C-alpha cells in the first residue's frame, strides 16, 4: 500500500482518523492512539514488501541503538567531537549505502522513506551533541521517526517540537480548530495532487521527447507546476492528517512561484528540507569557517557554504548527474545572489521599487523553472548526455 494516492489508503485513513477525532473532542490523550496507528500503518505499508520491511527494521534498530547509545555517552561523558563524528557518520551510513546501491545490486537499505527518516535521526544526534536533547524514550523515538502521516516523504519535523505536541492534550476548542484546518488541508491537497498535478502531467506527456524550443519551454513549465502541485498536495495531506492527530507538522510550501529571488525561493519551496539543511549544515559550516578563518571574507565563506549545502542536497536526491547538476546550479545561484545583494549599489538603490521587484520575480521564475528542467533529467537528455 502506498501513501495518499489510492482508495485503499484513504479508506484505512478515514477509519484511523475517526476514533482519533473522537478522542480529541473528548480531550483524551492522542499519544498512544497515534503511536499505535503509526505501527499499524507501517505494517500495512510494508506487508507486501518483506525485503523493504527487513531493511526498515534493520535501519530502525541501528538508529535507535546509535541515538540511545550516544545520548547515554553524551550525558555521562560530555562533548567528545571524535565520538560525535563517528556516531553521526554511522547514522548517515545506511542512507549513503542506499544512494550508492545503484552501483551494485540496488536493494541495500532500499525502502520507502529512508531519505526522510535519516534526517529525523541525524538531527536528534546533532541536538544531543548540542545539549538540547537529554532524553529520548524509545516509544517517543519510534513515534517521531516513524510517524505515519509523514513517513514516506516528509515534511521533516523537529523532535523537540513534535514531542511537545505529542505529549500535549489540547482543549476541545483548540482541537476542533486544528482538526478543521486539518480536514481543509487534506481536501486542498487532494485537489492539488489528483486534479491540478494531473493536468500538468498531461501537458508534459503532450510534448515529451519534442526538440523544438517552444515545446521544451512548455515541458519545463508543465514539469515545474506538476512537481509543485504533486509534492505540495502530498505535503498538505500529510500535514492535515497530522493535525487530526494533534500534531502541528510544519508547512512545506509557501507560494514558491512568487519568490523575488532564489534565496527567497528556498524559504518557500520544500521548506522543511531547506531549513533542515540551513540549521544542520549551512549554519554550522559558516560558524566553523568564521572561527577557523577558512576564507578571506565572510562573503566568500557564505558562497562556499551555499555551494557545499546545495551540492549535498543534490546528492541527497540521488547520485545521478542531473541531481548533482541541479544542486550545483542552485548553489551557484545562491552564491551569486548573496554576492549581488551585498555588493551591488544598483540592488541597494532600486530593490524597493515596484518595477525592480517585478523584474526580479520574472527572472527568478525562469531560473527556478530551468532548475526543475535540470531536475527532471530532460536537460541532460536534450544535450545528448544521457
Amino acid at each position, binding site marked *: 500500500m502506498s501513501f495518499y494516492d489510492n482508495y485503499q489508503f484513504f479508506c484505512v485513513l478515514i477509519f484511523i482518523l475517526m476514533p482519533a477525532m473522537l478522542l480529541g473532542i473528548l480531550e483524551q490523550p492522542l499519544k498512544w492512539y497515534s503511536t499505535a496507528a503509526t505501527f499499524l500503518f507501517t505494517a500495512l505499508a510494508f506487508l507486501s514488501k518483506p525485503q523493504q520491511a527487513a531493511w526498515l527494521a534493520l535501519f530502525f534498530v541501528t538508529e535507535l541503538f546509535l541515538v540511545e547509545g550516544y545520548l547515554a555517552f553524551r550525558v555521562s561523558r560530555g562533548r567528545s567531537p571524535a565520538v560525535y563524528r563517528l556516531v553521526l557518520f554511522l547514522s548517515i551510513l545506511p542512507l549513503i549505502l542506499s544512494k550508492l546501491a545503484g552501483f551494485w545490486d540496488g536493494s541495500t537499505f532500499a525502502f520507502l522513506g529512508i531519505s526522510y527518516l535519516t534526517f529525523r535521526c541525524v538531527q536528534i544526534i546533532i541536538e544531543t551533541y548540542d545539549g*538540547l536533547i537529554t532524553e529520548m524514550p524509545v516509544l517517543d523515538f519510534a513515534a517521531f521517526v516513524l510517524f505515519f502521516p509523514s513517513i514516506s516523504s516528509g515534511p521533516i519535523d523537529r523532535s523537540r517540537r513534535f514531542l511537545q505536541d505529542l505529549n500535549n492534550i489540547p482543549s476541545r476548542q483548540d482541537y476542533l480548530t486544528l482538526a478543521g484546518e486539518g480536514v481543509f488541508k487534506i481536501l486542498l491537497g487532494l485537489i492539488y495532487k489528483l486534479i491540478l498535478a494531473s493536468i500538468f502531467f498531461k501537458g508534459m506527456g503532450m510534448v515529451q521527447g519534442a526538440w523544438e524550443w517552444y515545446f521544451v519551454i512548455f515541458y519545463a513549465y508543465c514539469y515545474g507546476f506538476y512537481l509543485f502541485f504533486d509534492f505540495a498536495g502530498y505535503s498538505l495531506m500529510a500535514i492535515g492528517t497530522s493535525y487530526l492527530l494533534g500534531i502541528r507538522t510544519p508547512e512545506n510550501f509557501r507560494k514558491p512561484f512568487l519568490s523575488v529571488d532564489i534565496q527567497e525561493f528556498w524559504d518557500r519551496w520544500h521548506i522543511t528540507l531547506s531549513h533542515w539543511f540551513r540549521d544542520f549544515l549551512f549554519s554550522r559550516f*559558516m560558524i566553523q569557517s568564521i572561527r577557523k578563518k577558512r576564507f578571506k571574507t565572510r562573503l566568500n565563506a557564505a558562497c562556499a557554504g551555499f555551494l557545499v549545502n546545495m551540492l549535498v542536497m543534490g546528492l541527497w536526491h540521488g547520485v545521478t548527474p542531473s541531481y548533482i547538476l541541479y544542486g550545483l546550479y542552485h548553489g551557484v545561484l545562491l552564491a551569486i545572489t548573496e554576492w549581488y545583494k551585498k555588493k551591488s549599489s544598483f540592488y541597494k538603490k532600486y530593490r524597493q521599487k515596484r518595477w525592480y521587484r517585478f523584474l526580479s520575480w520574472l527572472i527568478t521564475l525562469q531560473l527556478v523553472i530551468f532548475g526543475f528542467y535540470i531536475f527532471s533529467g530532460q536537460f541532460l537528455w536534450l544535450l545528448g548526455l544521457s
Partner: protein
Amino acid sequence: MREQIFDILEKICEDDIVRSNPDIDLFESDLMDSLGFAELLADIEDDLGILVAPSEVDRSTFNTPNRIVAYLETRSAS
C-alpha cells in the same frame, strides 16, 4: 551584556537602526540573512561565551534585537 549584543548586531547589520528601533524584525527588514545569522551565533559565543546552536532558536521568535537580548539574558542566568 545588552550593550555587547547591540554592538554585535550593529556590526553585522551595518545599520544603527538596531539601536534606535530595537523591536525591528531583523529578517523581515533584510538586515539579517543566513550569513548574518551564522555570524551572530559565532560572535555571541566568542564575545559572551554563550553557545547557541543554530537549531536551538526559532527565527520567527528570535527576530528582534530586544528578543535576542531577552533570550540571551535568560540563557546566561541559567
